[in-house]
């Protein structure tokens, strides 16, 4: 009894002496793992031009479908392009698409959802429109949009964000509907706060926490979505080395050079895992109440 108490005290003392970062890592191991993984991918993406000896679009007919070597770490594809360089540059596209989609859908979601939550007739119109959008499968909507417009990274971002928006609007609206009934909103009314200020000061800050968590999941699914679209040929233009495009190119030569699909696929999986881990970790960290409910 005394011994175990003593041991416990020792452990507490030891933990108290640890640096804060280490204690944080012990308490949220998955969040930290996700952050580290994402940090690595972000680092590789940013410094891709300096890390790669070869240009990602430079073709070399002599060095086609080469296995890993000192010169081509991940080998080469059917046109002799360096897979390592292409994968690292592909990370730029994926991260850009992921973050932009998350940011765009969250921003639209906050504005539309908050307005819908506070105005009954706008709510009726907007939510029926959102229901309509949700009835269209996201991938079809995105493919349709991509065929109607010229392929570029911006249009891919819009095409992926568009099907996500109704879901964010619904989430925000549901949150706003509960927040608006909180006594502190009534208190703000009572002390003369005008509606725009109530929204900005009292409503939006209180829905950010669950929204950040949702946005991180959207970021992860947007990266996968981008790979789908590119793989189907309806995504980023073929000259842009995105993970989906690289894998699409590698599809026909998978038996000859497995690396063409393997490496971008591995990166995609790890990056999505990292973002999802961060989302889970943030949820536990920011709002333990929600974590229990979900």
């Amino acid at each position, binding site marked *: 009894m005394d011994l175990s108490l003593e041991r416990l005290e020792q452990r507490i003392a030891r933990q108290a002496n640890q640096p804060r970062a280490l204690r944080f890592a012990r308490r949220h191991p998955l969040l930290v793992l996700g952050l580290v993984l994402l940090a690595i991918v972000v680092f590789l993406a940013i410094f891709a031009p300096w890390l790669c000896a070869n240009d990602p679009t430079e073709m070399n007919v002599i060095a086609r479908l080469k296995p890993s070597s000192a010169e081509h770490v991940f080998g080469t594809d059917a046109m002799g392009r360096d897979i390592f360089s292409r994968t690292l540059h592909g990370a730029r596209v994926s991260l850009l698409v992921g973050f932009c989609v998350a940011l765009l859908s969250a921003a639209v979601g906050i504005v539309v959802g908050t307005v819908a939550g506070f105005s009954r007739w706008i709510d009726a119109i907007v939510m029926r429109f959102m229901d309509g959008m949700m009835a269209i499968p996201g991938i079809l909507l995105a493919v349709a949009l991509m065929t109607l417009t010229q392929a570029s990274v911006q249009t891919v971002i819009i095409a992926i964000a568009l099907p996500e928006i109704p879901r964010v609007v619904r989430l925000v609206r549901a949150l706003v509907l509960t927040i608006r009934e909180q006594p502190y909103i*009534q208190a703000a009314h009572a002390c003369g706060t005008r509606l725009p200020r109530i929204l900005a000061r009292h409503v939006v800050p209180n829905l950010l926490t669950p929204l950040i968590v949702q946005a991180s999941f959207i970021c992860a699914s947007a990266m996968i979505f981008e790979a789908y679209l590119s793989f189907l040929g309806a995504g980023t233009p073929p000259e842009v080395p995105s993970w989906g495009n690289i894998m699409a190119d590698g599809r026909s030569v998978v038996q000859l050079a497995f690396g063409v699909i393997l490496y971008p696929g591995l990166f995609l999986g790890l990056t999505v895992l990292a973002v999802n881990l961060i989302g889970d970790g943030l949820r536990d960290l920011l709002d333990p109440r929600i974590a229990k409910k979900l």
Partner: protein
Amino acid sequence: MNSTHQEAATPSQKPALLEVRELVKYYPGRGVWPKPQPIKAVDNISFAIGYGETLGLVGESGCGKSTAAKTILRLIEPTSGAIVLEGTDIAKLSTSQFRPYRRDLQIVFQDPYSSLNPRMRARDIVAEPLQNFGRSGDCDDDKMAALFARVGLDREAMRKFPSEFSGGQRQRLGIARALALNPKLIVCDEPVSALDVSIQAQVINLLEDLQHELGVSYLFVAHDLAVVRHISQRVAVMYLGRIVEIGPVGELYANPRHPYTQALLAAVPKVGAGLAREKTLLKGDLPSPAKPPSGCTFRTRCPMARSECAESSPQLAAQGPQHWAACHFI
């Protein structure tokens, strides 16, 4: 309305700060079948509050006392009736016309936890009403610290978030927010019922001290009769959306006329009371305000009910100086 009702609205001689006349709040009933009946949350009540006076408003849960209190601040829009603040009927003003009057009417909420925005610092919470009325100049550190000191919070408290305070301290914050604009009337919507008994006394004493210093009036909504007796000069008893008895606190507690008031007072636990009070315990629950009983709404639970109670609704009738009750048999 008849004259007795009008009289009941007048407080003790002094001119009234706030007069509520025939206030009604019906909520539309829900559903399609059977035909929805309006829910009569507040059904024609009148009362008045004088300068520096505390009017206690008591009744059991669901009797409409909170609705009545919030209607006065127009946090809930009244269905009909007049709310006269120093001669102006604020119930008839548009939202923008009413806004300046919010400076005179403030509220302290029941729940000290959910009535403070968890994402704002204490200082910003208390400064908000001042900023809303263009008085950001009064928000400097010293003036805010003085306001915090007035409710018994120290300077350090200004930087904290609501979650760092105890329940009693949070309620002090709520009171500071209500005081910031120097209101004439503070509606206290069960301000102590969520607090520990030991903390309740502190908050009640704080409210009393503030009234002595500032001359602010209170509409004190509560279900705890002991607390109401302590703080109020006059008390109104509500049952199912109506005031059944209203009178000076000493008179009403010593000589309750309405059977409902008698039952409420009999239910207050007493320590070492020598003379046992005649026990009139209430049977049953509060009827639904969507389907109130005909005639006297209290008849379904009243020990004195007779057939005539079902036919006509009793009006408030004078029982003594400043004392009115609504019952056929008194």
